[in-house]
C-alpha cells in the first residue's frame, strides 16, 4: 500500500516538474526558432493525445483527423472575420467556438463512418477528409477556395510572436491530456477499451458501443478542431491543401504508434520525439520533404521492433527487470501493463 502511494507521489512530482519545464520554455529559450519548434511540438502533443482518445482507446484508427484540424482552422478564421474580432489576445477566447463547430461536423461524419469497422472505417475517414478538402477548395465564397483564408495578424514583435501561441498550444495539450486521463479512469473509458478488445462481446455485456464510439469520436474531433483553430491563427494564412493536409493526420497517428497506442503518455512521448526531429530535418535539409523518408523509417522500425510502442514495451521491460529478483515464476509479465490498467481498476 505504501509503495503504491510512493509511486503515485513520484508520478505526480514528475508530472509537476514536466509541466513547470514546459511552462518555462519561452523564458529559458528566447530564440524564436526554438520556440517555434516548441509551438509545433505542443501542438502535436495535443493532437496525438486527442486522436488517441478515439484511435487508441477504441481501436478505431482514423486517418482523416486532418479534416477536423483544417475545419477548426477555417471555422475559426470565418468566425473571427464575421464577428470582426481584432488581432491580439481576444481571438483566443473564440477557440472553443471553433471546437463546437468541429463537434457538429464530427457528429455528421461519425454518424456515417461509425457504421463501419476496421479497415473500412480507416478508408471512410480518409475519404471524408478529402471530401472536406474538396469542399474547402470549391466553396470559394465561404472559404476563399484556392486563394486561401487570411487571419488577423497579431501586432506582436518577432521575438515575442511565438510565445502566446506556445502557451495556447500548451494549454490545449494539457486540456487534451486531462480529458484523456479522465476518460481512461472512468467507466466510459473501460467501455472504450472493451470495444477495442471485442466490440460484439462488449455489446453482449451491455456496453452501448455506438454511443460510446460516437462520444469518443466527437470529443477527439472537437479537441483537434480547437488545436487547428490556434494553428490557423498562428500561421495567419491557410489554404485547403495546407490546412487539411493528410500528412498531419498520418504524423499524429505515427506519433501515437511510436509512443504507445491506447496509453496516456505514449502520444506525448511520440510527439516530443518525432516533431522536433521532423522540424530539425526540415530546417537542415530545406523543404525537401526528406522527413517523409525519416517517417517511413520510423514506421518500419516501430512495426518491426516495438509493435506496441515505447511506453508498453519499456513498462514490460522494467517489470521484468524488477521481477527478476522476486521468488518463483513471475506473473508480472502477464499482468496488466500501463496500456491497459485503469487507475481505479487495479486488483486490490
Amino acid at each position, binding site marked *: 500500500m505504501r509503495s503504491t502511494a510512493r509511486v503515485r507521489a513520484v508520478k505526480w512530482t514528475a508530472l509537476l516538474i514536466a509541466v513547470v519545464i514546459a511552462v518555462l520554455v519561452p523564458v529559458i529559450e528566447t530564440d524564436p526558432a526554438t520556440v517555434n519548434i516548441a509551438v509545433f511540438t505542443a501542438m502535436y502533443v495535443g493532437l496525438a493525445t486527442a486522436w488517441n482518445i478515439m484511435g487508441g482507446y477504441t481501436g478505431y484508427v482514423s486517418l482523416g483527423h486532418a479534416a477536423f484540424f483544417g475545419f477548426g482552422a477555417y471555422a475559426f478564421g470565418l468566425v473571427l472575420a464575421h464577428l470582426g474580432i481584432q488581432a491580439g489576445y481576444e481571438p483566443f477566447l473564440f477557440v472553443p467556438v471553433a471546437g463546437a463547430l468541429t463537434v457538429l461536423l464530427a457528429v455528421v461524419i461519425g454518424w456515417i463512418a461509425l457504421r463501419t469497422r476496421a479497415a473500412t472505417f480507416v478508408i471512410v475517414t480518409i475519404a471524408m477528409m478529402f471530401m472536406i478538402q474538396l469542399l474547402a477548395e470549391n466553396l470559394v465564397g465561404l472559404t476563399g477556395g484556392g486563394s486561401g483564408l487570411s487571419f488577423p495578424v497579431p501586432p506582436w514583435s518577432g521575438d515575442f510572436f511565438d510565445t502566446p501561441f506556445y502557451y495556447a498550444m500548451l494549454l490545449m495539450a494539457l486540456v487534451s491530456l486531462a480529458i484523456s486521463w479522465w476518460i481512461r479512469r472512468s467507466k466510459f473509458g473501460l467501455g472504450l477499451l472493451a470495444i477495442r*478488445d471485442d466490440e460484439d462481446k462488449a455489446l453482449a*455485456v451491455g456496453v452501448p458501443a455506438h454511443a460510446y464510439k460516437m462520444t469518443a469520436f466527437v470529443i477527439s474531433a472537437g479537441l483537434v478542431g480547437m488545436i487547428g483553430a490556434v494553428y490557423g491563427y498562428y500561421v495567419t494564412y491557410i489554404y485547403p491543401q495546407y490546412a487539411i493536409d493528410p500528412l498531419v493526420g498520418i504524423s499524429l497517428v505515427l506519433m501515437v504508434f511510436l509512443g504507445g497506442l491506447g496509453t496516456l503518455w505514449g502520444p506525448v512521448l511520440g510527439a516530443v520525439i518525432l516533431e522536433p526531429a521532423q522540424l530539425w530535418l526540415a530546417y537542415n535539409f530545406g523543404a525537401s520533404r526528406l522527413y517523409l523518408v525519416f517517417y517511413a523509417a520510423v514506421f518500419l522500425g516501430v512495426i518491426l521492433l516495438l509493435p506496441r510502442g515505447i511506453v508498453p514495451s519499456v513498462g514490460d521491460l522494467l517489470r521484468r527487470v524488477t521481477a527478476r529478483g522476486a521468488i518463483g515464476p513471475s506473473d508480472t509479465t502477464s*499482468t*496488466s501493463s500501463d496500456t491497459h490498467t485503469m487507475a481505479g481498476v487495479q486488483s486490490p
Partner: protein
Amino acid sequence: MSLLEVDALSKHFGGVTAVDGCSLSLRLGSITGLIGPNGSGKTTVFNLITGFIVKDAGDVRFKGQSIAGLGPNRIYGLGIGRTFQLARIFPRLTALENMLVPVRRTGVRALFSRGQWHDEKARAMDMLAAMDIGHVAGLLGGSLSYGQRKLLELAAVMMARPQLVLLDEPAGGVNPALVERIGEHILDLNRQGVTFLLVEHNMPFVMGLCQQIVVLHRGSVLAEGTPADVRQNPAVLEAYLGS
C-alpha cells in the same frame, strides 16, 4: 410463470433456412437445455434472442414484453445475459476489469465517474472467488487458460444480475473436472434465482443439469420434455443418429 417466450421465430440466410418457426418457453427459475445436431440452428436462436441478428418473422417476449428488434446491449440491460461458444473475454483487460465492464450505470455523470467502483470491485472480487479464480484478478484476460476464461466469462455476465442467462456450450473444450465445477456453479446460480438456457453437446452434462430439454432439428423444435422423455424419443434418436 414463463420468463421468456419464443414464438414462431424464423431466420433465413440467403437460401438457407437457419431457424424455421421455432417456438419455446422458459419457466422462471428453470434450467433448459437446447440440443440438436450440428447446424440445427441453436446458436442462431441464441443470436436472435440476444439481438445479435434480426429476425425475419416471429417474436421474442421477455417478461411478457416483446424484445425483438432491440440491440444486444439493450437486451442485456433488460436482464438477459449470454456467453459465447468459444469463451470470449477482453484479452487486454485484467480479469477484474473484465468483471467491471458489464457494471451498469445511469446518467452521464455516473458514466464518467469512478467513485462507485469500490462496492462493485468488492462484488467482482467475491464473484471471482466464488468461481475459484480470485487469484487471477490482476492478470490480463489473454493470459488465462481456456478453463479460466470460461469461468471468467460466466462470472462477468452475472455482474449486472441478469435474470436469464444463455450459455453457449458452457462445457465445450474443458476437462471433465472443470465441466463438473461449471455445472456446480450453474446450479448454485440457479438456486439464487437465475434462469438458464444452455446449448450443449455434452449429453451427460446437459441431461444431469437441465429440468427441461428442447430438441432443435433443421431450425424447428423436434421434441421437448424432461431429459428422460427426450432420451427415449425415437424422432430425436433418428435426428441424431440418422435412420
